[in-house]
């Protein structure tokens, strides 16, 4: 009951206030075209979810080369090419353990994976460091995958 009364009083208060302070006021705010929604739309850029990846043999050597270059700059700090876990798991055998699309999504869309994918979440529990978004495009990620396949002995 008290709350109700207070609410009524406050309502009365705000109504009178409004009346007293903005009689004849031009609502200039309505004229300004600033769109705060647009201004706040600051989503990070991620790749779209990848559902299917076509693998071919023999390996595309140009992609393998590019994949290795990306690995050296952006991946190698945390992932070794053998089974050793440094910050993230070693890459040996990864193409046998994971679906190609899973690998691609993990590279290009790691936030989505950590939010939704049970396997990715398990890895986070083990490693305790969120895999960083290393700003890798989908074609680049495909090259990294090709390099992983080579690392796993695919010819």
């Amino acid at each position, binding site marked *: *009951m*008290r709350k109700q*009364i*207070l609410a*009524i*009083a*406050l309502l*009365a*208060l*705000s109504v*009178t*206030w*409004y009346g*007293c*302070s*903005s*009689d*004849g*006021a*031009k*609502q*200039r*705010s309505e*004229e*300004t075209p*600033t*769109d*705060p929604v*647009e*201004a*706040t739309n*600051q989503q*990070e850029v991620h790749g779209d979810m990848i559902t299917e990846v076509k693998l071919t043999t023999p390996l595309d050597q140009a992609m393998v080369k590019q994949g290795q270059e990306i690995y*050296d*700059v*952006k991946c*190698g*700090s*945390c992932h070794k090419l053998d089974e050793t876990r*440094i*910050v993230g798991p070693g890459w040996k055998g990864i193409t046998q353990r994971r679906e190609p699309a899973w690998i691609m999504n993990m590279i290009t869309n790691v936030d989505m994976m950590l939010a939704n994918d049970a396997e990715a979440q398990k890895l986070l529990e083990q490693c*305790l*460091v*969120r895999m*960083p*978004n*290393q*700003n*890798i495009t989908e074609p680049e990620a495909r090259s990294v995958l090709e390099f992983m396949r080579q690392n796993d002995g695919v010819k």
Partner: protein
Amino acid sequence: MKSPILAMAAVAALGLNLVGCKPKDAGSAVSGDAAEKVYVAPGKHDEFYNIVSGGFNGQMSVYGIPSGRLLKIVPVFSVFPENGWGYSEESKPMLNTSHGEVPWDDLHHIALSTTNGEHDGRWAFGNANNTPRVARVSLSSFRTEEILELPNSAGNHSSPFITENTEYVIAGTRFSVPTDNNADVPISTFKQNFKGYISFINVDKNTGRMGIAFQLKTPGVSFDLARAGKGKSHGWFFFSTYNTEQANTLLEVNASQKDKDFILAVNWKKAEEYLKQGKGRKEPAKYAHNLYDEKTHTATSTIMNEVITLDPKECPGIVYFIPCPKSPHGCDVDPTGEYIVGSGKLAAVIPVFSFDKLQKAIADKTFDGDFDGIPVVKYEAALYGEVQKPGLGPLHTEFDGQGNAITSFFVSSELVKWNIKDLKVLDRVPTYYSVGHLSIPGGPTKKPHGKYVIAYNKITKDRYLPTGPELAQSAQLYDISGDKMKLLLDFPTVGEPHYAEAIPAALIAKNSTKIYKIEENGHKYAAKGEKEAKVVREGNKVHVYITSIRSHFTPDNIEGVKLGDEVYFHVTNLEQDWDVPHGFAVKGGDNAEILIMPGETQTLRWKPNRVGVVPIYCTDFCSALHQEMQGYVRVSPAGSNVQLTWGTGKNPVAEAEKKVAKK
């Protein structure tokens, strides 16, 4: 039970309501919906960026409006412990001047770049008031990209102000001085030897790169503030002056003798014509030009040796004086470009000049003699009218885009809204306390956004919880969308804000830099990937190419550093994710610490002064294993035989021994 509560509430409402309508005790004069108007819910963004000068801290700060939240401090003319600006080897050249490194200056005014007289959201310019310089800050990276020193200048106060398309940034000297290359003269020869230089700095429209196009050598007066013409008056510039008495001592008295000082009107388009005709004179001058390269993440400083000057006495028709009562401070041009508002800080009226009348007076030669060879236009011939009894100590005027002006009054501590056409005072609100500058979003442009005015007060006193003798500065936000200005919010600011500009967030937010691409890192000592991490000795200099990623350094064990060595930690942050900087610190760091943005390389120089094993670690919490992001550097005596070895995830000394054993 019911009715007493209701009655009490009603009485309370009535009482508050009266106060709300007629703010006698202005300290509580906040309208009922103020909280709602400034509340930006968690996770939501502000509508405007407010780019605010830091005054004596030499920095710019960025606030969100309407919340008044501090979002960022951008170091410009002062070293900054937060991110190593002025301490890292890369940023040190930015603070170089012809006097050597100046670690701290005084930044007073902001000018946001415009295209066609409207904000374009590209750059913010700021002035160094003490050792005259102009800086350009990127509104994508919020980093100072360029600093240009100004010769023949002292007290760079009338600066920086920009033309409609950012063709020029101008900088007028507050102190008249003898020319730099003939400066050893008696101070008492002010009238013969001292000149007031105005620098016209051109700005490349694509890169923003600055250079001094020319300096105008005007009579020895003090330039205070300025504004470019716009619309019909585009091509002209207007400067307020004081000390037209040309006093060189006790200016408090001696520079306040005359009833009127001047507004200087400069036809810069005509000055450009004279330059084309070769009327400019190359004069020796020494000044630094500093540039920060976003690709090499490194600044360079170049000392320039020459400047072009233009003497108005040899170039008739480019400058005119307009008398203006008394010691004018602000000199502001309305959005149409027709009205020039002079605010005589010791005057009882606000004079408003008409650009059309000024043009006619010049054409008809309606002059009142000359001042040091420069024609003085008759006051009445250029005057549109005066705002009568506006308040005490008018300082600055901004425009709401609805035909009104709002002027700040320092002495009577208030904002006063008046109509530009009929010069009638419409409204006044108190400020707490003693307002200096004021800012309306887009206020100095052709199309103000209006909505708010922000007062930057000089005195804080009791507005916040006391924090000893030194207090935060007080800014105040007012709603100007109605007929009456309404106080919404007090918010504390850092440094001492002078001028500030506010700009819609939509013009800036979308362009904000998130990371630096590691592939594009052109730093000389970058390690792009751990494969490139290494330690290289060059005489007594040891270059450590070290990488950081969540959460380790490579290398994190280094041996073979000796006393007498100078160690350079070139830290490359391999992260490519937004908001993952790493920090770097070394025990006994005689220089500083640094902060490295994703994809960037920054260098910390360290000169060890004792033998021992010295820890290094990351100072920016980066992950759950941040605390583990640490390592060691072994420092041995000079002349020791310890080999230079390094690594991460292995024992470098043991491995070196293994190699020796194999051999």
